[in-house]
């Protein structure tokens, strides 16, 4: 990744706070708990999942910088959703946390020097990931779940009609 691509990626990642909150406006609150079946997440669960992955990201980015080469943790996402009870938690708290953590991560990333992005951690599933790769994964992850929310809305609309 060259420095321009990286700058753009950091900018796009940081803008996710705005993009996500704008995206959420299209979902009526009455469907935030809708799920087509037990195996799929509702909007509320997706938001808590994004938050918990970004909280892991907070620690991963900083571990890469401070203790490069360390192993980082990865949550078993379905167990977290079920055992922590994402479906019962306040979605607004999750949004508030997401905005804070992405803003804070973005601010940190903007202060880094080029060689910092080669620092890496070991992910238990994906192996060695440098800071560029971590950032790409976190950025894509948020977009993936925003698309999943849209899919949920389409299912809910189809069910209503």
């Amino acid at each position, binding site marked *: 990744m060259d420095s321009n691509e990286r700058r753009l990626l950091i900018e796009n990642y940081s803008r996710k706070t705005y993009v996500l909150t704008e995206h959420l406006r299209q979902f009526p609150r009455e469907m935030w708990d809708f799920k087509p079946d037990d195996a799929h997440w509702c909007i509320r669960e997706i938001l808590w999942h994004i938050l*918990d992955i970004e*909280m*892991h990201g*907070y*620690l991963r980015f*900083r*571990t890469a*910088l*401070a*203790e490069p080469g*360390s*192993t*980082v*943790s990865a*949550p*078993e996402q379905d*167990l*977290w959703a*079920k*055992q*922590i009870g994402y479906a019962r*938690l*306040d979605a607004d*708290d999750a949004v*508030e*946390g997401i905005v*804070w*953590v992405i*803003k*804070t991560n973005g*601010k*940190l990333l903007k*202060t880094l020097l080029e060689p910092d992005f080669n620092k890496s951690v070991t992910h238990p599933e994906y192996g060695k990931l440098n800071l560029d790769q971590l950032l790409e994964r976190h950025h894509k992850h948020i977009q993936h779940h925003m698309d999943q929310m849209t899919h949920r809305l389409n299912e809910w609309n189809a069910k209503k009609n």
Partner: protein
Amino acid sequence: MTSEERKAKIDELGGFALALPQALKEFPRSMWHYKPDPDHWCIQEVVFHLLDTEINFYIRYRACLAEPGKAIMPFDQDVWARELRYKDGDVDQALAGLVWALQANYGLLKNLPEEAFLKTVTHPERGVLTLERILEYSLGHIPHHIGQIRKRHNEWKALQK
């Protein structure tokens, strides 16, 4: 620990979300960067350390619940303070995140059934830790650093005479 004792401890954790920003108002911003020597943290560094520790607790509490028995990742506090340049960060953003994380952890713990507090994670240095033990550790950690902040303030005041 009886359930009343546990409830009091959880309330104490939630109380820090209000008490900590209030306590910090005692100390003039002009001395938040003061350190007696490079080996001791200034107030700003202590705030960042409290934030990063609370986010680690955020993950640890939830790992206990969702994936009991899981190995958790420790972090080297002095390396983090130095490599992440705590002294140069946005301390207001850090404080906002610390309050958010304390409230999120309080919100999670206050609604847990009694048996959840016996769930564990494994710390590489401290061994098996129950959720209850992590809570106790957190409750000792915050006042310890408030004491450190007071000490730094007293050292700074002594220099002003």
